[in-house]
């Protein structure tokens, strides 16, 4: 009888132990709730911290990672060029971003080789749905928008050297380099890794105070990322106001913002999308994963 009771106790104890472990696993993991509704985003602006030439790297990184908390809305024009086989490829975009209470985006971009046709790309999100139009491919599509509770939090199982930048609701998936402006966490999570960073002076860029950062990529990455990448970071918000990239001491790529306006109310009708006439919805075309 004593033996029987002992087995019962041991069995129950082991079961209870596993119960605790299981509960801890469930509570400790956030994998089950990767997204949340737009209106659940915290409606607050963080305390002010302004960057200066005496700021250390950790303060700069903190500003970059939390940039989206430092303003409610921003609108700007984005003008960029890059050299492709010795010719200039141009990108010009008009961008409006609202961070709160509901994240919304309107980006209209043209791009193409200098002197040749410029193709329109448009991305408009009203916080519930996102509209994407690609003139070059001649289609558009609309999809639901999901917003992560924490834009800079990586899932625990993320691979090494992975970056997470896309989920704070102001994502501009069609924006390419435009996205860096309002997602400066890219800078902290990517190009500042394994690189030498030199903190420069505060300079005037796009009519605003900007802290200059010179980044020197590692030897292995220089072929692609260049010898030097210069970024101008808005000292009050952390958004990227300008960027120059050098290959073999020659400037190979550059962008700068114009007409930067912060925290001005942007009417909701700026985020209404209208499907272009005669352009097919991508998902109404008989789609094949690969061309036949």
């Amino acid at each position: 009888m004593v033996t029987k009771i002992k087995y019962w106790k041991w069995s129950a104890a082991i079961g209870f132990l596993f119960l605790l472990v299981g509960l801890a696993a469930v509570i400790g993991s956030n994998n089950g709730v990767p997204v949340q509704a737009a209106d659940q985003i915290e409606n607050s602006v963080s305390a002010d911290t302004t960057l200066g030439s005496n700021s250390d790297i950790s303060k700069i990184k903190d500003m970059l990672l939390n940039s989206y908390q430092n303003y409610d809305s921003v609108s700007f024009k984005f003008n960029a060029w890059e050299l492709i086989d010795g010719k200039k490829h141009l990108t010009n975009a008009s961008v409006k971003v609202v961070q709160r209470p509901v994240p919304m985006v309107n980006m209209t971009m043209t791009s193409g080789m200098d002197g040749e046709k410029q193709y329109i790309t448009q991305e408009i999100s009203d916080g519930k749905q996102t509209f994407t139009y690609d003139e070059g491919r001649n289609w558009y599509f609309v999809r639901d928008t999901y917003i992560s509770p924490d834009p800079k939090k990586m899932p625990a199982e993320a691979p090494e050297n992975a970056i997470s930048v896309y989920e704070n609701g102001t994502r501009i998936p069609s924006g390419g380099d435009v996205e860096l402006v309002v997602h400066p966490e890219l800078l902290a999570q990517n190009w500042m890794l394994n690189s030498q960073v030199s903190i420069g002076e505060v300079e005037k860029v796009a009519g605003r105070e900007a802290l200059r950062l010179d980044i020197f990529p590692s030897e292995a990455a220089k072929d692609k990322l260049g010898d030097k990448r210069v970024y101008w970071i808005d000292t009050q918000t952390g958004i990227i106001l300008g960027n120059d990239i050098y290959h073999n001491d020659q400037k190979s790529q550059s962008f700068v913002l114009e007409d930067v306006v912060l925290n001005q109310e942007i009417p909701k009708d700026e985020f209404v999308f209208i499907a272009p006439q005669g352009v097919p919805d991508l998902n109404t075309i008989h789609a094949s994963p690969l061309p036949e």
Partner: protein
Amino acid sequence: MKSRSKGLILAFLIITTILCASLPVLAATTIIYNGGSGWSQSGSEWHSQSTGRDGQPIGYSPPMVWTWNNSSSTSEAGAWSISNASGGCYIYAYIPRNYADVNQRYYIWDNNSIIASSLVNQASYADQWINLGYFSIVPSHTVRVQFDDFTPGVSSNTRYAGFDEMRFVF
């Protein structure tokens, strides 16, 4: 003896229940290798690359493959897919340090519907996993990432469209 058996059965049931309840929160990761199971490609002008310009191995699991960009239409395309998806997933693309510098969209498919696209400037990344985002996939459907060489507005044969591994985290 009867009580002992009951105890063992009870413990087994508790443990099994807990393990089953915990399974959904334990992420499953699958990597689709170019050239391996789950990879498909179309077109004929493919280049295989085992080493970078520095002579060192290139790609997450060499070789990687690449093709030149095309300004007028899609001539080469590749896709990484997983059938019987267990639901939504994060997707990461590996961008090697050489032979991948096109500014191009990755398309995410749920069965035969495109549900999202993500523009990535490959020229901005060197030997890194890039998070394309979190995507809701209908359970048991096929999730597929497609990438191609069509770059309207960029002269042909001036950019490398690089294809390497794709990681799906469910």
